[in-house]
């Protein structure tokens, strides 16, 4: 599985080859929520994702 680096701590994460742009991942070592970005040339990188929202309800 290809590895990408975490933009928060610099560590590395396994990202499946079939991952879609916009897919969310968690870096278990530092707890960062990350989003996969793919540019026009097809190169992949991770950026910090929006925080998990809080929602009322049950």
């Amino acid at each position, binding site marked *: 599985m290809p590895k990408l680096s975490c933009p928060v701590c610099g560590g590395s994460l396994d990202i499946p080859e079939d991952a*879609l*742009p*916009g*897919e*969310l*991942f*968690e870096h*278990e070592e530092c707890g960062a*929520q990350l989003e996969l970005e793919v540019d026009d040339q097809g190169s992949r990188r991770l950026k910090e994702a*929006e925080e*998990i*929202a*809080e*929602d*009322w*309800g*049950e």
Partner: protein
Amino acid sequence: MDLLREAGRILLKLVETYTPSGEEARLHPYLEELAGRLGFEEAYTDDVGNFHMSYGKGGTILLAGHLDTIPGKLPARLENGEVHGRGAVDAKGPLAAFMLGAALAREELDKVRVSVAALVREETDGLGAKHLVEQGYRAEHIIVGEPTGLGIAVAYRGSLTLEAEAKARGGHSSAPYMGESALDKLLSFIQEVGRRFNGRRYEEPTHAVTMLRAGEWSGSLPENAHSVINIRFPNPYSSSEIISWIREAAERSGVRYRVIDLTEPVEVGVKTPVIRALMRAQLRMGIRPRLVRKTGTSDMNTLYRITPSITAFGPGDSRLAHTTMEKLSINDLITAAKIIAQTLIELSTRMKT
């Protein structure tokens, strides 16, 4: 896609039949007829009144909605592309999306069993979900039907409800310093609970005093006082540490307590297979996935014991749940049904490999 033209009418029919907890069977005849029309191969009611409909053979994907609502009948109507009425949001809209989504995906699925369950008593004691766990129900993936505004739920808090009561010898209200008040004892306990569980957001345990009764006569100190307190707590708090703290606080205040309901918190990661499938389904449809943590408690907390590949998802604004303003847009219902269909396809592909 003809099915989707019926989406509004199906939800209206579900909503106009009043089914507070314990009275879910009123909708069983309609569900049976609908299951047949939507292409489900099997439909049955289990021992506690959960209605199940399924098709296919193989590993099971369970779409677990609930059929009951809180009490309080509201007029049901379909107006300006929205269905109004009790349960439109919580949670007949999500249940309708599950049935429609499963029907949409049927032709594209292979070697997988899809089951939609309309569970009972989610709004009270969670009997329907507990029954599945106790009966050893097996599923590889579960999506629980709750209004998440199409968000993907990764966590629900736990819930601990306790009854606390105090007794005292009482006395005349003109000389309280000579008497003993049960209400004073109970209030001292409640204040201590309040200081300990005083959160204002998901991560922090909260408390709510939901019932309080005391006093026998306007001129006497109360000899009996009774209250019900609900505490909500997220991971990593555990019920055992909370109960142990409660025990000590109750002893300090001279109060007796009894736990009357307990549900542990649940939290899953984004790499959970069913969550990944929901995210990918939304991305394929051009929708940006949104993860949510719910401050309440749902059947997801209970059904987690069947499989850790679990989430809760559904159309509807959770702020309208349990209000007189419940309504759901048919467009949101249709979008949710399409997401469910795409998710089932996504999951089934991975279940075969």
